[in-house]
Each structure stands twice: as C-alpha cells, then as structure tokens.
C-alpha cells in the first residue's frame, strides 16, 4: 500500500500524529540548537522520553498509576450512578428542576477544587478524599447533560409510542433513554477531563502516593524530565479514555455517532 492510499484511509490518525510530531520536533530542535537552556527550568522531548522509559517501562510509576486509577474509577463510577438519575428526574419533573437547578448550577460554576482541603480534613489523606474530589468535579456534567437530553426528547416520539399502545415504562426505555444516551456520552467526555483534574489536585494537596503526588515530587526536586513523564501518563490516559468513549458511542448510539463524526 502506498503512502497516499494509507493516508486516504486514515487521515484522522495521520494528521493527529503529525501535529504532535511537529510540535515535539520543534521543541527538541529549539532547545538543542537555538536556545541555551538551563535544565532546572526547561527540558526537552528526548530527555522526557528517556525518563518515561525509566519510570514507566521499567515500572517505577506503575504503582502510583494503579493507586490513582482506583480513586479515579471510584469517583467517576459514583458520579455516573448519582448524576444520571438526578439529571433524569430533573428533566422529567418540573418541580425537581426548579428546586435543584440554581443550587447545582452554582456548584458547577464555582471552582470546586477549592474544597480539596475540606475533603482532606473530612476524609483524611487517601483514597476516599481523592475519590470524593473526583466525584464532586465530574458529577455535574452527568447531571446537566442527562437533564438536557431528557428535556430535548422529541414530544412527537412520545406521542408515537403512546399511540401504538406504549405505557410509561415503554416511554422511558424506548424513547427517553435512547434519546438521552448521546447527551450522556458527551457529558462523560467533559467529566473525564474534570476527573483527571480532581485526581491531580487531590494528590497535590495531600497524598503519599499516586501519579499526582509523583508529579509534584519531581517538580519540587527540579527533575523536570521525570515530571513531564508523569504528565505524559495523564495525557495518554485522557486520550485513551476519550477514544474508548468514541468507540463506546459507536456501539451504544450508532445513529448519533455517525452524524457527529461527519
């Protein structure tokens, strides 16, 4: 297969990788040949790659990654379990919306990371406090997107199902749920980014282990290449999770995945 044909098949992959490669290359060249840099303040991709190799491939960071992943998964799972039902009820019951909307909007808009010290006082250093912070940051996209999805459900489709003899249960399962699903997936995309921030902040504030703790330790000791290798782990996690979500959307909501990818 020629290069041109390969490009025609995977333009998204190739252009995405290319822009990363250009940035990394420019960064490397700039610091190697143009700027005389102080390794205390700056680092470059080749050094980061070496540190990444040392930390990841040789396994020093794996334990931290595992610890952070637990808090991340726990907080996010809780956010899904709590956020989706709240959003659904807000969408379906006007009074619940009126009662909760101002409160939740205020919380969503405010910088919740400021609550990190409070959570650490309440739950102590460790898994619970971190999971709580992840939950707090990532629950709102689920609430508001589920709410918007339920509210945007086409009245005509409710009428269609009712007219063919559908009961309330059928309306939920055959209309409201599928019509809300793409909104929830979009919410998950926002939630993942916020959850990663939650993990990081939680571990910056108070932790003795975890990827955030490792990053801040490396930073404090001027080991920039190692620090960036930790950040790189987070980048990879974010991209991988977003890609996984895209795949998931294609499975659970093929009608909307195809429309949005165009």
């Amino acid at each position: 297969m020629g290069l041109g044909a390969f490009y025609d098949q995977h333009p998204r992959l190739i252009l995405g990788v290319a822009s990363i490669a250009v940035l990394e290359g420019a960064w490397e060249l700039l610091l190697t040949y143009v700027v005389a840099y102080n390794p205390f303040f700056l680092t470059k991709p080749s050094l980061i790659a070496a540190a990444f190799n040392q930390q990841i491939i040789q396994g020093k960071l794996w334990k931290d990654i595992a610890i952070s992943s637990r808090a991340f998964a726990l907080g996010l799972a809780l956010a899904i379990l709590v956020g989706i039902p709240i959003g659904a009820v807000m969408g379906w019951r006007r009074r619940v919306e009126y009662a909760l909307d101002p409160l939740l909007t205020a919380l969503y808009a405010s910088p919740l990371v400021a609550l990190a010290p409070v959570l650490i006082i309440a739950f102590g250093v460790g898994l619970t406090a971190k999971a709580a912070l992840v939950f707090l940051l990532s629950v709102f996209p689920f609430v508001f997107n589920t709410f918007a999805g339920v509210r945007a459900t086409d009245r005509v489709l409710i009428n269609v199902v009712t007219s063919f003899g559908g009961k309330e249960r059928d309306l939920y399962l055959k209309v409201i749920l599928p019509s809300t699903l793409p909104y929830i997936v979009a919410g998950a995309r926002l939630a993942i980014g916020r959850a990663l921030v939650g993990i990081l902040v939680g571990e910056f504030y108070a932790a003795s282990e975890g990827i955030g703790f490792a990053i801040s330790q490396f930073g404090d000791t001027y080991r920039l290449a190692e620090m960036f290798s930790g950040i790189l782990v987070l980048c990879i996690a974010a991209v991988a999770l977003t890609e996984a979500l895209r795949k998931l959307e294609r499975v659970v909501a093929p009608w909307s995945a195809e429309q949005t990818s165009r």
Partner: protein
Amino acid sequence: MIPYIRAREIGLTFRPKNREPVRAIKGLDVEVGRGEFVTLVGPSGCGKSTFLNIVLGLLRPDTGEVQIDGRRITGPGPERAMVFQEFGLLPWRTVLANVELGLELRAVPAAERHRRSLELIQMVGLTGFERHYPHELSGGMKQRVGLARALATDPEVLLMDEPFAALDAQTRDLMQTELLQIWEKSKKTVLFVTHSIEEAAYLSDRVVIISARPGRTKEIIKIDLPRPRDYEMRLTPQFNDLKLRIWETIKEELLVRAG
C-alpha cells in the same frame, strides 16, 4: 349506512398557562364509512390535526365524543394507527426496528413481527433498506417507513396527518398514487388531513371542509370520480371543477380570518 367512525359535536379549547385560552374546535361532526377515504381540509390553524389526535386517542375533547364501530373511544387502541406529519421515526432504530415498533408494543412474538414487518417493507418498496437508519433515508423513504409502521399493526383505521407535507412535489405525487394503490388493496378506512386541495380531491371519496378556527364542519363534498384513479385524471375538467368547488368554500373561510 351506519358510519364506522362517528365524531359528533367535538369541541376542544386549549388552555395554556399564562395565556389566553385557544378554542381549537367547536361543533365538529365527521362520519366515515368502513373502507371509506375521507379527507379533512381547511385553513391552517382550523384544528384538523387536533381533531385527528382526538380520534387517535391522544387528546380528550371537552365536548362530544368519537365512536368507532359504535364504541366510544377513551384512548389509543389497536384498531387505529397514525402516519405522522414529520414521520415520527425513532432515529436510534433501523427501518426494520421502526416498522416493528407497534407490534413490539403489542407484545407480538419476535419471529412474527419480523415476518410481518419485512412483508410491509416490501409493500412500500424499501426492500434492501431494512438495516438503514432514518437519517440515511430521503424524506419520501422516511414516510414509506411511517406508512409501513402504521400498516404493520393491521389497524382498521389509518389516520394520516399531512403525511406528505414535508415532501417535494414529485415525491408527493408518487406517494399519493402509491397510497391509493395500497388503500385499494388493503381496504382500510382512511381519515386524512391535508391543506392541499389537489391532494384532497385526488385521494378522497369525500372531502370535509373545516371552517376557520374554532373549526367546525362547514361542508362535505363528495368526490364522484371513478377508481382506480391515476395521475392523468387530474387533468380532466371534472377534477378541476371539484377542486374549484373546494377552493371556493375554503376561500370564504380564509377571508373570514383575514377580515
């Protein structure tokens, strides 16, 4: 003739919150014989779609009642099915799954609803598109799915709410002719709503003209043209005379509204 559908003295006023109530229909009488094709026409906003939703059982009238085969209707029922104006297809369902919807809601076994749906997909000429999603179809194809879905439950009465209004003129002509062919084969009772005089005259046995809002029955015009009808029939003087009669009756109502 004892009418199969009998709607008498139907009245309905919408009472939206914080706004003036809107009297949609008042004293609407419609009778449809078994196997008859009756079309309601009238100025926009005259409540003809509202009336169809009452017959479907989605809306309750304030006054009067609708009987089907002598029984008063109180909600949706298996003997009625609607073809919706904007198709009303579930975007997350394939053509096949959309056609199966009504059967599924009536708990028809999977194998049976599959067989029946494929049959109807063939009848409306969509064989080969069973696995397509609605957004991959043209407007005409979408409404074929809507028609197949309504016919799949084998209702006695087909209610059609401006089903071809969203289609381009040529697709519309084609769909009208196909609808007539399907109707002549299946012998369903059809209650059709349109704002197109041409469509009303071409399809119907009788045309019921509804007054400006609040809608009531203004006049009933019998369309005494031979069947089966084809496109060429629309060029005959008799057809144009009928169109003119319908137009003149509706025009009075348009002038009432304007004045």
